């Protein structure tokens, strides 16, 4: 197990290096020269060259990237001229809101999709199953941010139950969480359903029944644990998806998270903030996906045995 974890950590390191280089290289091409931003439009060419050299922008890409990663190791992601603060500090100040949103969205979607998917699998072909399937089709086709807008119209503007945006009290997380969560519900429900359908045909459930295990326990204990891996995968992907993908929901609800930070930074060509935020989010994403992978070992002893090899 340790060897596997170490191996995976090394791979994670490679992925992080790859991702950060990719993002760094892409963002390097972005318009919006920080030198001009510092100096202002009416600086002379000589002043520009001097500043450029002073900031180290005249060095080759790979050197600057190395420099950047060295900084990252020390918690330095550069400086945001728009917000006048360190990017790392800025990012960390926005991260909790995004994590909270991702977590609540995952809870919302799991609470809906797990029972729904199991129910649909057990009554495969029934009208309840078909209704669930129709809902999945609808859910996959509905743009998330539009769901958010509709929720605001109904629950905030008409009923007045919630604020229409911002993050001032805990209730403010409810509408955004439902928005992001329902977006994932369709996929997780489908995954749960098909995974359960695979499992409920297995011989070992027959044996469990033949032993006298009650039908409820056959499903809850014997079947669910076997069906869990694809469900965990879907949930993990969903969680990481909410980390980076709730950009638009955050904008709709004026949620003070990382996504909105990136959008605002792009619009004001605050390149350091964009680069730093995307690299950090990608890093957190791959770490969470690794944790999900390691979780498999606790669910399925066969996978654990593989990891141990």
């Amino acid at each position, binding site marked *: 197990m340790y060897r596997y974890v170490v191996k995976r950590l090394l791979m994670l390191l490679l992925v992080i290096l790859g991702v950060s280089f990719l993002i760094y290289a892409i963002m390097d091409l972005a318009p919006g020269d920080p030198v001009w931003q510092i100096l202002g439009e009416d600086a002379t060419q000589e002043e520009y060259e001097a500043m450029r050299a002073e900031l180290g922008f005249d060095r080759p890409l790979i050197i600057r990237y190395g420099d950047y990663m060295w900084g990252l190791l020390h918690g330095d992601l550069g400086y945001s001229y728009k917000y006048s603060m360190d990017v790392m500090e800025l990012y960390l100040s926005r991260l909790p809101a995004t994590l909270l949103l991702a977590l609540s969205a995952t809870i919302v979607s799991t609470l809906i999709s797990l029972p729904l998917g199991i129910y649909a699998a057990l009554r495969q072909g029934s009208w309840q199953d078909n209704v669930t399937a129709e809902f999945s089709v609808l859910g996959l086709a509905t743009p998330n941010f539009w769901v958010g807008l509709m929720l605001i119209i109904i629950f905030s503007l008409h009923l007045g139950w919630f604020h229409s945006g911002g993050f001032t009290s805990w209730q403010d997380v409810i509408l955004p969480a439902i928005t992001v969560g329902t977006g994932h519900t369709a996929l997780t429900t489908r995954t749960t359903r098909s995974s359960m359908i695979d499992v409920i045909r297995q011989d*070992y459930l*027959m*044996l469990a*029944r*033949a*032993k*006298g295990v009650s039908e409820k326990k056959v499903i809850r204990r*014997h079947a669910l644990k*076997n069906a869990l891996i694809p469900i965990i995968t879907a949930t993990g992907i969903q969680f990481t998806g909410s980390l980076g993908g709730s950009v638009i929901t955050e904008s709709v609800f004026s949620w003070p998270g990382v996504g909105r930070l990136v959008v605002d930074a792009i619009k004001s060509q605050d390149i350091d903030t964009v680069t730093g935020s995307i690299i950090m989010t990608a890093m957190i994403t791959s770490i969470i996906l690794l944790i999900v992978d390691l979780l498999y070992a606790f669910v399925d002893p066969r996978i654990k045995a593989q990891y141990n090899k």
Partner: protein
Amino acid sequence: MENKQDTVLQIEHLTVCYETEDATVQAVNDISFTLQAGKTLGLVGETGAGKTTTALSVLRLVPEPPGNVSGRVLLNGRDIYQVKKSDLDQIRGKEVSMIFQDPMTVLNPVFTVGKQIAECFEIHEHCSKHEAMEKAAQMLKLVGISPERLHEYPHQFSGGMKQRVVIAIALACNPSLLIADEPTTALDVTIQAQVLQLMRQLKEKSQMAMIMITHDLGIVAEICDQVAVMYAGRIVEMGTLEDVFRRTKHPYTEGLFHSIPNIFNRQEELKPIPGRMPNPTDLPPGCAFAPRCAYAVEQCRKQLPTLQPCSESHRVACIRYAEPGFRVERSRGV
């Protein structure tokens, strides 16, 4: 001592069909038999003859729908199709248990074997978890596995070992009836012999009745007292081991014997039964075996034969026995 003549299982007119969108599959057609405590019945026939469905319907485990079961299954005098569904859990595993065909797939991969055996004791003897585990360890020992392996998972066991675990699960609560559905088919020959020997030993220790489902006549000869031969969902011949093996009546049974090589006379030609079993969604009106039968006459294709007694213990479903002096080749000169 219990009375040897105690009837453990009585099946009356059991019929099972599976209804799919396009067709109805006649899996089991009107079969009846009884089984006494301590006896072993061999249920013989080709794949698809309805043996497994018969077994599952004794446990009321035929999935409904698409399955549709009619007839009566009396287990220790109680019709299991009349009891409440919630009471079934107390019957399964306690009064009747089953060994499934493929040990590779019947053990739950995410639980330790100990846990899976212990579960029986938790359900039927209401033991504490700890107590159940201890009993599970004894069961493992009984089937010849070191109790130290209690906390291992199924994937750490070989096929033969897995089948021992399955046997341990089936026997955990001393059922009065054990159904073994081709328990050795998926195993290597040498392992087959070990498992069979184990089953026979364990059976001798108890008064358990057993139904041994197999297509291997060797196994039947080895451990069965009675034999029922199934073809296309019907019992075509039934009797004691002697009856069926020595005084073979049904042409199909004869065909089965002719399909195995005779090691004492290797020159003798194998005579496989020609053709295939009829499509169970479209059974012929007469005898289902008639199209493949060397003795079939015109009437066989029209009239459905019923089981008729030909001695006190022996019954056969073949209309040709209405003709005096009719015999299949194997029984001529007996």
